[in-house]
């Protein structure tokens, strides 16, 4: 490539080098590009500064390809590359969000199958693996006084007073509609008196061999909690056998709902009853609402199910049959001492064979109370025995006289 060299005074041979500059400024073909030069080699600013003082077009720079088409153009319209566009090679990391106008990245700009869970926001609705995460369904009762160890309260939520230490009491666990989180219909209120032990509200979700597998998965749970006692409530997740318990931060005690969340990577051997635990570590009244359990490292804001789906999940584990006038009823005609049998189907298939509980003392005619002599995942067999030959029947005659079906995997 030709270079510019100093010209010796009076040297005609070197005048060709002066001609190089003249050619460049004139735009002689193959000798340079015509530019309106204002400043070249401005040492106080940049090695090369080209300024076009035309206020209309500001045509400052045009670099052409060998075929004469634009390669790079700088003018009033900005910096343009020739067509077809030549790739621009930028240093890695040189483009940050500050250089990208908000709202300009469209879905088409993203590669398929490229958005990872970690990039999701908590407001991205995802499938809740919990049953009754909203604490909306209370089939057993709506108020429990001093529930004991492993007692179900709201559907799929259990209590454990004094998981450590002694003397602490879960005084009352109840459905509450006055202290709910935004958009919720009901929450769980818990009053806890601490002695030396911490107490729990917890829910089991099952590992590899039972309901669904969480082995080798990272799960995130979040629970909305309100309390006015600092450092009293926090959330944890753990694997069966108290393995790898991981905790959230504590509620600040600010008296408003806060989201307590925890993320845990479950091992390949995670099976059995993995748990979400809500610890009560001080005397307090706490309100629990809108719990979520999702796959991935980012917790999710609560996304309510349709009520039919919410109830259907709960019915998989617990249901009430009857409790009305003349329903349920077992009836038939039989000789004295003969048995009358009725097969009762469940509303929902159960994960395991169920415990059947007859609630209350039913009204009877010519027989005793009904008994159960067989139950599986889909129904059970109810039996009465006729006292004397004739019609015999037993039936629910008041509210609360029912069968309950319970299957806890």
């Amino acid at each position, binding site marked *: 490539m030709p270079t510019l060299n100093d010209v010796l005074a009076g040297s005609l041979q070197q005048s060709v080098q002066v001609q190089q500059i003249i050619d460049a400024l004139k735009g002689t073909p193959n000798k340079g590009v015509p530019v309106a030069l204002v400043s070249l080699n401005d040492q106080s600013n940049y090695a090369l500064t080209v300024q076009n003082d035309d206020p209309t077009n500001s045509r400052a720079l045009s670099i052409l390809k060998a075929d004469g088409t634009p390669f790079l153009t700088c003018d009033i319209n900005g910096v343009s590359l020739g067509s077809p566009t030549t790739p621009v090679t930028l240093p890695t990391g040189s483009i940050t969000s500050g250089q990208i106008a908000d709202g300009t990245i469209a879905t088409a700009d993203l590669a398929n199958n490229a958005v990872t869970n970690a990039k999701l926001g908590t407001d991205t609705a995802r499938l809740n693996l919990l049953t009754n995460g909203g604490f909306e369904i209370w089939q*057993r*009762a709506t108020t*429990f*006084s*001093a*529930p*004991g*160890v*492993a*007692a*179900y309260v709201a559907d799929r939520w259990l209590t454990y007073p004094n998981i450590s230490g002694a003397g602490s009491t879960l005084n009352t666990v109840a459905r509450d509609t006055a202290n709910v989180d935004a958009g919720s219909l009901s929450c769980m209120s818990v009053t806890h008196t601490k002695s030396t032990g911490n107490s729990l509200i917890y829910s089991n979700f099952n590992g590899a*061999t*039972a309901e669904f597998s969480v082995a080798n998965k990272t799960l995130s749970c979040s629970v909305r909690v309100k309390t006015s006692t600092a450092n009293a409530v926090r959330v944890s997740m753990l694997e069966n056998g108290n393995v790898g318990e991981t905790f959230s931060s504590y509620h600040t005690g600010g008296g408003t709902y806060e989201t307590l969340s925890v993320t845990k990577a479950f091992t390949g051997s995670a*099976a*059995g009853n993995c748990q979400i635990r809500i610890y009560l570590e001080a005397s307090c009244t706490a309100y629990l609402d809108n719990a979520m359990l999702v796959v991935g490292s980012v917790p999710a804001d609560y996304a309510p199910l349709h009520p039919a789906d919410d109830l259907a999940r709960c019915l998989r584990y617990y249901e009430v049959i009857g409790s009305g006038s003349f329903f349920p009823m077992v009836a038939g005609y039989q000789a004295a001492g003969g*048995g009358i*049998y009725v097969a009762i189907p469940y509303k929902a298939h159960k994960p*395991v*064979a*169920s*415990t*059947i*509980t*007859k*609630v*209350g*003392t*039913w009204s009877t005619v010519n027989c005793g*109370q009904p*008994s*159960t*002599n*067989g*139950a*599986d995942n889909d129904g*059970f067999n109810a039996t009465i025995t006729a006292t004397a030959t004739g019609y015999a029947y037993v039936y629910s005659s008041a509210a609360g006289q029912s069968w*309950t079906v*319970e*299957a*806890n*995997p």
Partner: protein
Amino acid sequence: MSVRPVLFHPDGSCDVVYDELGHGGTIPAAEIRWTTNIDNSENHNYIVLNCPDGCGASSTHPVGGGAAPAEVQQMFVEKTKRDGCACGQCAPGDADALCESHVRLNVNRMDGAFRWQLG
């Protein structure tokens, strides 16, 4: 919940609770009974517990555990050790391990191998 066992005593009785109504008490060993089949034979797959409070509640628990797997399975083991099994496979006083394995077999048959909750 159900009328569920929570504590077992050396004399074969067990403490139960009925959470929904806050009832509880002790059920003597003689009142922890197998259910009966249509032919009046006893069924080693189910045990009936009546609420000691007298409220009329009565829970029929499957050997798999139903509402309270660990405690119910333990109840079947304790009853089988004390009374033998309804099927005759185990006799009263048989080795604990034999009784436990028989109950475990019944649990596996009912709910599958994953269901066993005792040690």
